[in-house]
Structures are given as structure tokens and as C-alpha cells.
């Protein structure tokens, strides 16, 4: 059977770049699903800011006929009943089949034509694309879409698949790039006829590079960088072309972060660094056209950047009239939270939490940059601006760096502050926020976390686990709810971020969760020793010991009496316990290996010795022995939390 190709193009006003990939994935999936009964397969799914395009091949004329067996009356039924059944199926009794003592009718529903299916289903599939933010179009009661659809093209082979959305009907024509595409004599966009075969070539001739990978490769080559800004331009421009511009090197005196932020985030330019890592007075911009022969576009972009940098210089100069130290008092006018107080008060609390001169000085100045013009303009640069200003205002490098890094880590991927003072200030700031928010009852629940307290807590955990500070969690968390909240983040950190087994995390935390660096060491040791043959059996034995002790409601009251020990497995266990205990030293790995070495004697004990004997003194002594083993060897981890195979 001859098969057809399908081409669908949804022409839409400029769709935000970041929405296109997920939208296209969805559309591709839905169309693929729709085409399955027709035998069709999606071979191209591409999006530009003005079009969503799908090409599929292998579509049959129609879907397969559906056959259904309708069971009729028994063969012994009276003739009128049989005729009645046949009539209902639209046939005569002679047309009925027979099977296992019954009449039956094989009903064939002819498969619907591909065009019919596509016409019926595509509008809802297109309108069903989930967009993060939609608009009503053309008004109340109308459709919701990301932006108005301006044309629809849908071809099955040579024929248009007829359907319409909000008054826009399908045709066999597309439109090219707004400026590079065909236009009428009075400079209006000119529709261009296409076939499935020449679609991509016609678009290219009309200033549109259809394939994202092609646009991307072009940009990566022209820009010489490969990052998320490339992706943005891939979906912002139908014909992206990079070009270089320059700016006055005098602006390089401004903080580099400010220059980069203006270029990258405000202007979507690539900043250019030299081989020495220093910022060069250059930028790379991307235009949505092929070239700029007169340099007008470069000139315009340079002019805009100059104005932006001038603004930044103005802010910088105004800001230098008062130092960060002068500004500390101004923080009384900056509210942190209406129920908690202002940033001046917060500053004093952070200073009080810091434990050395450098971190205290940094903490005192840390929030002052909130009052600068630069941070009011570039809020995302808070901290960095303060750090840069501190350096030019004569603060020590240690203090400046700590101010600079105070908000780190900003995300799971971000590093913690590199310096000890930076870690101290960051920790103090975060823990203060957590304490105060918990104090006023702002405790995150479910998806509600308006003050990003989980992120703050995660920062605390990472700084404690990865940094140089040695604070205990209980020392920092002054309330039970906060302690639980932090512990929850500790579990998340070691399981989901660090990838430790959940039972190992539980076991280690049960043996002590205060010192996170110690927790990390113990976890690493368990992970290493876990693979050895003796470890899990010993863990299982510890669990058994714990059960026995809890069943017996044992409370230690006296030391082990060696005289009461029975020769054989019990005495052996005791001897081994004493020997291991005495020798227990070195890192956690060595300790765990030593404990695991108890396996043969522990096994022998449980095989040969009854704990619950009638003699109370002996029983008590045995329980004491087991309790000693458990408590003595549970400082690394509570082995009873380890999930074992048996």
C-alpha cells in the first residue's frame, strides 16, 4: 500500500525561547501517538520562535479495519430470534456464522481515512500543548495559547488536511523570516507555497534555519562558546548570526560581575575573556539576520551597551561616596521581615554568631551593599558588589572575599564559600534566617517555602559537611522543629546528593548526627566495609542483640562477671570482645573491619548459647555482655538499622 508523508506547521507569533523545547516534545509525543494506528512515524519535530513543525512518514491511507465478533443466539433458538439478531446487525440470517453452538456475526468497522482522523484530532492536540503562561485569544471564552496562531499548514502528501483553529484555516503555504522572507511589493509578508519535500529548503531560502541543531552548530562555531546563552539564541532567532562589538576599555575598571551581568543577562551578549582569564573590552551579540554589511547593527548594540555601562559607572561612583561601614546604620531602614525586624538587627545577630575577627568584620559589612545603587539596580549581584566595594575601600582580602561569598551556595550545583570566613558568614546568615523564621512560625510545608528555607538549610548542611567549620547541629538549632528540619536536609544530602544507601544513612545518624564531617567519614567507612563478607552478618547479629535486649527490657546494672561466663562460645565471645575493644583504633574503616571480625564468635555464640536461661545471674551476665558489645561498637553506626538480606 502506498504511504504518505505528513507535514504540520503551526505558525505563531514569537514564542518565548525557553518554552519551545518542552512544547515541541509534547507535540511530538502526541502526534506520534495519533499516527500509530495509521502506521506513521514522526521523522522531524522542530521549533523556531515563529513555528512548530512536524514531519511524519509512512502514513497509510486509512487506519486498519476493526473486526468484532458479535455473539448471537444458540443454534437451537427459534428462527424469529435468529432473524431478529441478524436484522439488528443489518444482515440476513444466511450471513451469520456459527461457532461452538451459537450464531455469531463478524462485524467489520472500516478504518477511518487518515485525513479524517488528522482533521478531527490535530486541533485539540495543538491547543493541548501545555504552556507555562498562556493568553486568551481572541478574547473571553476563546482559546488559550501562548501567542496567537497566525497560519496553519497541514499537508498529507500533496493534499491539505482541512481544519481550523479560531478562524485560522490550514493551507499549503508558509511564511519565511519576518525580514528575510518573501514580501509583497508593499513590504507585507508574502505566503510561500511548499511541498513536504521542499519545505526545509524553501524555509532556508526564506531566511529560516528550521533545525535547532543546525542553528546551534552555526552559533557555537561563530561564538566559540557553548553554554545556555547559545541555547537561548537558538530559539530566539530564526537565522542567528553572531558578530563582535567592542567597548571602551575604561569600563573595565567597573566590577567584572557588573559588566558581565549587563552583557549576559540584560543584553544577551556573550562576554569575552582573554587567555589570561581577564575580561576583554569586547562582546559577541547575535542578530536575527544574515549580515550587517554597513555595521549599523554593531554600532547600535555598542551604543546601547555604552549607555548601560554609563549607568553602572554612575551607580558605582555614587556608591563610593559612602563606605560599606558608613552604611551599616542605614540598614535600620531596610526591612528583613516585618515580624522579625530590619537588616541592622540581623547584621548584629550574624556578627554575634561569628567566631573570629575576620568573619565578624565581614558579617558587620555583609548586608550594607543592599543600600547601594548598584545592588538596587542589579539585585542578583548582592554580596558580590559588597565584596568588590570592600576591597576598594581597604578591607582585608579575607574580609572582602567573605562578603563576596556570603550567599553561596546558591544552588546544589554551586560551591560553598572557599574561605573559612566566607563559610562562617554564610553559615551565620543562613542559620539566623532559619532560627528567626521558625521563631515566627514560618515553617515550610509541602511545596510552600516562600522564603526558600530548604535552600538555606541545605546551605547550612553543605557548609558544615564540606567546609572548615566545626559546629554541631544541636549547637546551631535552638529549637526542636528546626533540628528536625535540618536533620531532614542532612538525610536528603547524604542520600540523594551524596548517594549513600538510606539504611547506612539511618544507621550512621542514629549513632550521632551532630558532627556532619564525622557523619560523612563514618558513612564512607560503612560503604567501603559493607562489601566484605562478614559485615552484613555482623549487622544482622547486632539487630538480634538489640531485639533480645529490648525484649528482656534489659537495663545495665553491673559489670560483666567473668566468673559467670561459660567456657566455650560465651567465653570466646567475651575474649574476642575484650580483644577487639582494646585494639579498636584507627580510622572508621579499620574499626568496622575489626568489628566485622567478630562474626565467627558471634555466630558460634548464637548457635551454642542460650541467653534466656533460668539462672538469673547467668542470664543477667549474658545480657550485660551483649549490651556491652552493642553499646561499645555502636559509636560508628547503629548496625541494627542496616537492612540485611536475611
Amino acid at each position: 500500500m502506498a504511504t504518505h508523508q505528513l507535514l504540520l506547521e503551526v505558525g505563531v507569533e514569537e514564542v518565548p525561547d525557553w518554552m519551545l523545547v518542552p512544547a515541541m516534545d509534547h507535540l511530538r509525543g502526541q502526534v506520534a501517538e495519533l499516527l500509530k494506528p495509521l502506521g506513521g512515524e514522526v521523522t522531524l519535530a522542530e521549533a523556531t520562535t515563529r513555528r512548530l513543525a512536524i514531519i511524519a512518514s509512512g502514513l497509510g491511507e486509512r487506519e486498519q479495519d476493526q473486526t468484532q465478533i458479535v455473539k448471537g443466539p444458540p443454534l437451537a433458538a427459534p428462527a424469529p430470534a435468529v432473524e431478529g439478531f441478524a436484522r439488528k446487525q443489518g444482515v440476513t440470517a444466511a450471513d451469520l456464522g456459527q461457532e461452538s453452538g451459537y450464531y455469531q456475526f463478524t462485524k467489520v468497522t472500516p478504518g477511518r481515512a487518515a485525513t479524517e482522523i488528522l482533521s478531527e484530532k490535530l486541533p485539540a492536540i495543538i491547543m493541548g500543548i501545555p504552556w507555562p503562561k498562556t493568553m486568551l485569544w481572541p478574547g473571553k471564552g476563546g482559546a488559550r495559547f501562548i501567542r496567537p496562531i497566525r497560519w496553519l499548514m497541514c499537508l498529507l502528501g500533496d493534499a491539505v488536511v482541512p481544519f481550523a483553529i479560531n478562524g485560522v484555516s490550514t493551507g499549503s503555504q508558509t511564511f519565511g523570516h519576518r525580514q528575510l522572507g518573501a514580501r509583497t511589493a508593499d513590504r507585507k509578508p508574502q505566503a510561500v507555497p511548499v511541498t513536504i519535500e521542499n519545505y526545509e529548503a524553501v524555509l532556508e531560502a526564506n531566511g529560516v534555519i528550521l533545525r535547532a541543531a543546525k542553528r546551534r552548530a552555526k552559533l557555537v562555531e561563530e561564538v566559540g562558546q557553548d553554554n545556555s546563552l547559545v541555547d537561548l539564541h537558538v530559539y530566539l532567532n530564526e537565522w542567528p548570526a553572531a558578530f563582535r562589538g567592542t567597548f571602551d576599555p575604561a569600563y573595565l575598571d567597573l566590577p567584572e560581575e557588573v559588566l558581565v551581568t549587563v552583557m549576559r543577562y540584560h543584553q544577551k551578549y556573550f562576554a569575552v575573556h582573554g587567555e589570561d582569564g581577564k575580561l576583554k573590552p569586547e562582546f559577541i551579540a547575535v542578530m536575527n539576520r544574515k549580515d550587517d554589511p554597513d555595521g549599523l547593527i554593531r554600532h547600535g548594540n555598542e551604543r546601547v551597551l555604552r549607555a548601560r555601562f554609563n549607568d553602572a559607572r554612575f551607580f558605582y561612583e555614587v556608591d563610593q561616596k559612602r563606605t560599606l561601614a558608613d552604611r551599616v546604620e542605614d540598614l535600620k531602614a531596610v526591612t528583613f521581615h516585618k515580624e522579625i525586624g530590619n537588616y541592622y538587627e540581623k547584621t548584629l545577630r550574624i556578627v554575634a554568631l561569628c567566631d573570629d575577627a575576620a568573619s565578624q568584620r565581614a558579617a558587620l559589612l555583609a548586608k550594607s551593599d543592599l543600600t547601594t545603587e548598584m545592588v538596587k539596580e542589579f539585585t542578583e549581584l548582592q554580596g558580590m558588589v559588597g565584596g568588590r566595594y570592600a576591597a576598594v575601600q581597604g578591607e582585608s582580602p579575607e574580609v572582602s572575599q567573605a562578603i563576596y561569598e556570603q550567599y553561596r551556595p546558591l544552588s546544589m550545583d554551586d560551591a560553598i564559600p572557599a574561605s573559612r570566613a566566607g563559610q562562617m558568614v554564610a553559615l551565620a546568615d543562613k542559620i539566623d534566617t532559619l532560627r528567626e523564621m521558625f521563631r515566627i512560625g514560618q515553617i515550610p510545608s509541602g511545596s510552600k517555602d516562600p522564603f526558600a528555607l530548604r535552600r538555606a538549610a541545605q546551605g547550612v548542611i553543605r557548609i558544615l559537611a564540606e567546609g572548615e567549620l566545626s559546629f554541631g547541629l544541636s549547637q546551631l538549632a535552638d529549637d526542636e522543629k528546626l533540628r528536625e528540619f535540618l536533620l531532614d536536609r542532612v538525610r536528603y544530602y547524604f542520600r540523594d546528593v551524596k548517594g549513600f544507601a538510606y539504611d547506612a544513612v539511618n544507621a550512621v545518624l542514629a549513632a550521632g548526627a551532630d558532627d556532619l564531617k564525622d557523619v560523612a567519614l563514618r558513612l564512607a567507612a560503612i560503604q567501603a566495609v559493607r562489601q566484605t563478607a562478614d559485615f552484613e552478618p555482623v549487622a544482622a547479629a547486632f539487630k538480634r542483640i538489640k531485639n533480645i535486649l529490648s525484649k528482656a527490657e534489659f537495663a545495665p546494672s553491673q559489670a560483666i562477671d567473668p566468673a559467670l561466663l561459660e567456657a566455650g562460645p560465651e567465653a570466646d565471645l567475651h575474649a574476642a570482645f575484650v580483644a577487639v575493644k582494646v585494639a579498636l583504633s584507627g580510622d572508621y574503616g579499620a574499626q568496622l573491619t575489626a568489628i566485622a571480625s567478630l562474626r565467627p564468635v558471634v555466630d558460634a555464640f548464637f548457635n551454642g548459647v542460650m541467653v534466656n536461661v533460668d539462672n538469673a545471674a547467668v542470664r543477667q551476665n549474658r545480657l550485660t555482655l551483649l549490651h556491652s558489645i552493642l553499646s561499645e561498637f555502636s559509636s560508628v553506626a547503629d548496625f541494627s538499622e542496616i537492612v540485611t538480606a536475611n
Partner: protein
Amino acid sequence: MPTPDHLYYQDVVLTLKRYWADRGCIIQEPFDAEVGAGTMCPETFLRVLGAKPYRVAYVQPSRRPADGRYGDNPNRLYKHQQLQVILKPSPADVLDLYLGSLEAIGIDLDKHDIKFEEDNWESPTLGAWGVGWQVMLDGLEITQFTYFQQCGGVDLDLIPAELTYGLERLTAFIQNKDSVYDIDWAPGFQYRDVRYNDELQLSVYNFEMADVATLWESFRLHEAEAQRLIEGFKALEMPSRRYPLLAAHEQVLKCSNCFNLLDARGAISVTERVGVIQRVRRLAVGVAQAWVVQQQEVVA
């Protein structure tokens, strides 16, 4: 006659007005009360409500007291001029019409880079929002394009396109000037000659001399007056065409201006800010909802 590659500021304005007049827009004059943006004027804020088609264009001087720079900053103005165009409902070729307007003022789009970059607009004080773009010309934002969705908290019957041209920026681009004050406004007159005094003196007033107590008192008085008028409308047995909701709207604009002045004066703490915005918003929403009711009565 100005040559096409160097229009005077006033020619840019006249050409754009002519262009939109030729496309069915009523050419209105600026609204005669202080506003922060052309959107707040009744020709936009109230006209976009309801099911009646409308097309209008007007220049609106827009006051943003906090943006004042004493006439020193080449790109920032206390009061700038917007050309506001409302096309309700938005026609299918709205973006082509818009691009045509740029060519009309001599911008050859075959030589420049034009991009429509996502920029959704929201005015918390007006209970209004829309989706759209900032239009970038060689990296410069020259126009805000918005498909209004809600105004005064009311869903719109017909989605209008709102085009807001920044006239100073656009002209500075056309004339290749680095400072708005260097723009040639008319033969022999630069922007500086026409507007420098307002920028300097009003910056002094807004930042240094505006009396905070007086502004707060004005805010309260206008708020109370707006509230009284809105309540009065609600109390009517039959919504009447002659009831002065337009006066209530003017009172809301006065409140908004007082708020902007207080803000520039640094008299509104971050904590208070949200509350004051909500007070203005409540009024704006009240007027918009009443207006919809009143207009329905008129139609019926």
C-alpha cells in the same frame, strides 16, 4: 522638509500619529492628569474593558518621579513621552502593522536587527496584566507590546494589543545620539532646550522638597474621594450613565501619583509598600468593575 534619515523628534511623533490615524486610530491628546504610564489613562484603562471595539493613539507624558536624575543622566528621565496605541481587538496583522510604523519613521528593517523578546507586563496597582514582548532594535528596547488580559481585575472581552513606544529612545536611535538631551526636537531646538528645566526642578522637588506629610494627606483625601464615589455607584438602585465614575478614576490616578512621589521621597518603607499598593489597587479594581456594569447598562 526633514529628510527621512534624520527626522526631528516632533516629526517622529507626527509621522507615527499619521501612520496610526491612517489605520483607523482616533488620535487623542494626552490625558490631563499626572500618570506613570499611558496605560493608566482612561483611553486605555477603561476603553479596553467591555466588548466595544476601539482604536486610539496618543502621546502621554509619563511621570516616574523615582527615575529623575536632575537632568544629568543621558538616558533616564523623570518625565518621558510615550506613544500609546490601543488596537481593540488586536488585528491578525498587528505585528506587521507595528513593523510598518518603524519603516514609516525611516528605520530600514532590511538593515537592522529586530527581535520580539518575551516580556510580560503587570501593574499591581491597576490590577492589570498581559503577555507580550519588549521589542528590541539593535539591542535597544524601543517598544513594549502587550496583549492585555485583565484590567482592574476584570477579564477582557476582546484582547487588545497595546503598543507603547518610548519616543525619546526611538528618536535618539534614529538621530544616533548618545544622550536624550541632544535629540533634535525641532529645527534649532534640542530636547535639552525644551525639557531640561522640568527635569532639574522636578527632580529637586521630588527628591528633596516634596512635603511628605502633605503627600500622605493628599493620598488619603484622594483615596477617600475615590472610595466615596465607588461606594455611591454601588448604592445606586439602577446604574446610571451620568454617574461620574470617570471622576472616581481620576482620583485613583491622583492616589497613584502621590504614591510615586512618596516612593521617590523614600517615605514608604518596604513593609508599607505592599499595603499602599493594595489600597490603590482596590480602588482601581472598584472603578473598573463599576465601569463594566455602567457600560453594560448603556449598551442595554
